[in-house]
């Protein structure tokens, strides 16, 4: 019996970074709970990721590897997950706050006659219960919640938890689980991949983001030029995406991607709470905005109060020269 069961995700046959973070969090929580850490890998080609889950800290790995699970579907996933939770009987179930986690967690919790807490950014244990700290009110506030029923289902935000140092010498039990698959009433008939040239947003160490104050979609080319020099990803505010200036897949914020790079360079973005909800965890925020009272400066390490059109070309030149002499 485990104290914490992680419902991990795989991509291209490997364990996702977030799944390793979840196992790290589970390991720390299990110290104050009763039992070890287990991890379920539900999908297609997931068996290959089992050793990585053990190395990341799982004592037990349940593998459900079926080509019919290649495409996530709510109605096939939830009963499989419920079966493993019932078999493993954990006190806590952790999922990532991903397209899968946000969709499945509330249904899974309801099926297990319990409740879920979504989008945790901090986790701790008090009296056998997990205390979940989660942002709310568009990032303006945080609440701490506990779940009175069992198991406690929690989704966790990417990059909010540290993974353990992977240890290939760790040992763990890997079990193949046989499941009956339900045929879903909803099926995915097509998939459109967002054309993301360059560095993916959620993995980037530097993000350069543009907002409505850029004034025109063409300005994003200038951001892309600087991004290429810096090895950065380009993001956008919702206002810029809604105007059609940049693809919605690049939206940063509450309803877009949450990023926490070393450097977040916000150009002509006001810093509304819902935008900061997606980048407030960045290690260094730097803004160029012509309004000294813009909300974003309240989050910044460095700020430039000026028309970005006058600053950006010189900044691009200066950074190009600096990086050339590295």
């Amino acid at each position: 019996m485990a104290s914490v069961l992680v419902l991990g995700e795989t991509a291209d046959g490997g364990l996702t970074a977030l799944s390793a973070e979840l196992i790290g969090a589970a390991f720390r929580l299990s110290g104050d709970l009763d039992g070890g850490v287990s991890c379920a890998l539900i999908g297609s080609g997931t068996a290959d990721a089992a050793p990585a889950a053990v190395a990341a800290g799982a004592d037990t790995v349940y593998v459900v590897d079926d080509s019919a699970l290649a495409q996530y579907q709510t109605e096939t996933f939830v009963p499989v997950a419920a079966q493993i939770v019932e078999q493993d009987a954990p006190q806590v179930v952790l999922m990532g706050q991903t397209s899968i986690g946000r969709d499945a967690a509330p249904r899974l919790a309801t099926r297990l006659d319990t409740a879920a807490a979504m989008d945790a950014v901090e986790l701790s244990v008090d009296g056998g219960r997990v205390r979940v700290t989660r942002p709310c009110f568009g990032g303006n506030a945080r609440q701490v919640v506990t779940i009175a029923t069992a198991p406690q289902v929690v989704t966790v935000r990417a990059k909010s938890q540290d993974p353990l140092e992977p240890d290939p010498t760790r040992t763990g039990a890997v079990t193949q689980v046989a499941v009956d698959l339900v045929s879903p009433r909803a099926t995915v008939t097509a998939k459109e991949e967002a054309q993301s040239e360059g560095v993916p947003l959620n993995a980037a160490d530097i993000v350069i983001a543009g907002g409505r104050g850029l004034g025109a979609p063409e300005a994003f080319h200038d951001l892309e030029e600087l991004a290429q020099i810096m090895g950065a990803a380009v993001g956008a505010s919702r206002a810029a995406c809604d105007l059609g200036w940049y693809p919605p897949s690049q939206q940063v914020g509450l309803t877009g991607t949450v990023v926490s790079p070393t450097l977040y360079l916000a150009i002509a973005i006001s810093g509304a709470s819902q935008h900061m909800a997606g980048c407030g965890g960045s290690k260094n925020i730097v803004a160029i905005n012509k309004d000294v009272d813009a909300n974003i400066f309240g989050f910044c390490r460095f700020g430039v109060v000026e028309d970005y059109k006058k600053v950006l070309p010189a900044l691009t030149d200066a950074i190009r020269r600096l990086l050339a002499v590295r």
Partner: protein
Amino acid sequence: MDAVVCVKQILDPEMPASAFKVDETTMTVVPPPGVQPVISPFDAQALEAALQLRDAAGAGAISVLSLGPDSARDAIKHGLAMGADEGYHLNDPAFEGGDAWTTALALSKAIEKIGRPDVLLFGRQAADWDLGQTGSIVAELLDLPSVTVLRSVQWNDGRITASRVVSDGFETVDVSTPCVLTISNEFGDPRYPQLRQIMQAAKKQVTIWGPADLGLDPGAVGAAGARTKMEAFFVPEHEAQCEFVEGDSPEEMAQNLAQKLRQAKII
């Protein structure tokens, strides 16, 4: 094509962040002066989706359903003014202090009582507590398929074709009805009610139900029935001290910024 759209009235999420204050002892938001509550923006988009689906299907009744205090009536009226036909208001002191579970439980009973519609529409999340759970829980309770975080929906002769926003792009999903759909901001702007429609909506009756009307024990809803408990509520500190980079010209400012980023080993 009959639809029920679940709408929540919330504090205006577009209010300035500086006006947002909480009372940590009562764990409530301090109502900012002059800021009016609004229908949660994704719920207005869910209403728009329902109206478009009905247009495509040719006919159907659209019901607006909200759980909340007296003021939540305005959110229902907003839906009626946009073009919905019936309003239902779950309003009783017993509903207060609930969580996603108790809200979804009450909504699901009300939806069954209204008469099972073809499509149940929700916002992807209520823009106050940002839970993003209620639609999925209702789907589970009513044993319906759920397709979440949608940028578009189409009526397809009794089925729905939806485009779901996922982290790496979009998925086209085909689903049978009845089903639960949750709408995301990519759906686009909802119509704005005209004055004449607002006046007509003002005259419409809204049905009010309490727990007993839904066959629910008052102890099963609101704070008494909640499965989650709030332990703390606060505004996070962000301790950043912005250093404004100076310079005699914009070019000089840019060069100074690049230098500072390098000195701080950020680049």
